[in-house]
């Protein structure tokens, strides 16, 4: 298990360096290392690198690649958390309405006359973040998460109902949006174009914090495999742990959605892949999901920016057939 995690971490690092160099202006991996070493740590290496290459790496590609890593890790980890919490293999990070809330928030922000500095600082991202949190708060409230009275099926149903309601509201806003329709549509497809250092930092800090804290709750989430009653008998305070895990997974998801829009399938598929490799214990699934999600989104985004389509389209193109293949294997003997 530890070996799998270390190997995949090494793979992620290699792919990241390759991806930074890859693009219209190709930069050799060693030069990429030299540029990063020089710019971030002041190392006296790589004397013959042009200012243009440095600016491409440091201002455009590095923040974008780090964003792909952060968003992929956040989505896959919270997907794994929601699947464990709700004991449902079909749960994904958006199961409590995060995606619809974020989309509605972003759509409203596109319509508001905010310009200039607020826009630069990420008005849309902030609105998406608030929308995501608001929808989960609503589901939390109605389904009574953490009250001890909640039923998992009803949490899923309430999540679905709230998401449908918000989706209807989103349709209305899109109808009324006129010229902004394309921008809203772009957000719905998900993408990492135009990620800047400040926006990356604003999302990456809560994502890192939430995923690390979530990983620390792995023991409780492992006990959830046996259901509420079973977890109680293993010494877990079920209500408290469920509240904490939902809050952390929501924070990670909302931050990821704010930065990258609605990127689908990463949070659903990657945890299942991780389980294939290391079994169902969340303590093993979390780190591998985080790395796998980062790797998948990084690869998908590299393809996306090469052929010029939103990354969400690529993840759906890879993810949907892959899910079908997993289900096919399930029929052939392997069960999710």
């Amino acid at each position, binding site marked *: *298990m530890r070996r799998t995690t270390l190997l995949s971490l090494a793979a992620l690092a290699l792919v990241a360096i390759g991806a930074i160099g890859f693009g219209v202006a190709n930069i050799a991996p060693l030069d990429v290392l030299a540029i990063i070493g020089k710019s971030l740590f002041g190392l006296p290496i790589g004397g013959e690198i042009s200012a243009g290459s440095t600016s491409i790496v440091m201002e455009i590609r590095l923040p974008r690649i780090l964003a792909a890593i952060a968003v992929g890790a956040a989505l896959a980890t919270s997907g794994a958390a929601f*699947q*464990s919490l709700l*004991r*449902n*293999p079909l749960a994904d990070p958006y199961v409590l309405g995060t995606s619809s809330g974020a989309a509605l928030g972003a759509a409203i922000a596109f319509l508001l006359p905010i310009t200039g500095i607020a826009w630069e600082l990420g008005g849309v991202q902030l609105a998406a973040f608030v929308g995501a949190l608001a929808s989960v708060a609503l589901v939390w409230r109605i389904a009574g998460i953490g009250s001890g009275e909640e039923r998992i099926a009803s949490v899923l149903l309430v999540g679905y109902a709230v998401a449908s309601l918000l989706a209807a509201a989103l349709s209305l806003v899109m109808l009324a949006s006129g010229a902004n329709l394309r921008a809203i549509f772009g957000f719905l497809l998900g993408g990492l174009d135009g990620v800047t250092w400040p926006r990356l930092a604003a999302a990456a800090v809560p994502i890192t914090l939430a995923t690390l804290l979530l*990983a*620390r*709750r*792995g*023991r409780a989430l*492992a*006990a959830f*495999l*046996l*259901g509420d*009653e*079973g977890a*109680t*008998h*293993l*010494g*877990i*305070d079920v209500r408290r742990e469920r509240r904490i895990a939902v809050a952390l997974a929501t924070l990670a998801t909302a931050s990821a959605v704010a930065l990258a829009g609605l990127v689908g399938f990463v949070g659903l598929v990657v945890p299942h892949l991780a*389980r294939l490799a290391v*079994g*169902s*214990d969340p*303590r*093993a699934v979390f780190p591998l999901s985080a790395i796998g999600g980062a790797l998948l989104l990084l690869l998908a985004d590299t393809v996306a920016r090469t052929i010029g389509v939103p990354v969400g389209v690529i993840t759906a193109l890879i993810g949907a057939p892959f899910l079908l293949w997993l289900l096919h294997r399930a029929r052939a003997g*392997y*069960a*999710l």
Partner: protein
Amino acid sequence: MSANTSPNDATPYELLGAKNLQVDLGGTTILRDVSLSIGPGERVAIVGPNGAGKTTLMRALSGAVPATSGEIILCSEPIQNLSRETIARSIAVVSSDIALPFATRVDELVALGRIPHGRGPAGPSAHDRERANAAIERVGASHLQRRDVRTLSAGERQLAAVALGLAQETPILALDEPTAHLDLRHRMEIADLLISLAGDETIMKTKRSTSCATDSAA
């Protein structure tokens, strides 16, 4: 945990006890005036028809539902003074139907029994795996170790459930209807297993039928 006196003391040491226990759930009284006392090494069967409150009694005795009135003593300590973790290190409660949402190997399932003994975010340690495998061996299920729990037969799943309880390494092992859904032969096998477990655990189990209570309560 404060007291852990030897079972050979002059006065019999009470491992698990209830005095005038009453439990109300949703306005209905499920248990009324239940008193019992169980000592180390005892094998106890709680027998009653469906709806008699066997499962509720077991849940109350393990602190999963609060007592409305009366008193529960676990390891010489009133249960309300014990943390959930301490309770989980004192009494292992195993349900008869384990339903897992994901493919899980038997040894992975049984390793979950080590959770009350764990600390920090790391998964089961080498020692935990060793203890889990020892528990699987004690129930004679080593050949099932790497099988997906969800593909096991009802009888095999019961073995895995008992191993899960044993891996928790508690002085008390409580099994809720461990022979439910089993045919007579497998029921006898589980009963024999529970009698023959060569440990110091106090074993408490619930069952519906009275037909072979004397056999398996031993």
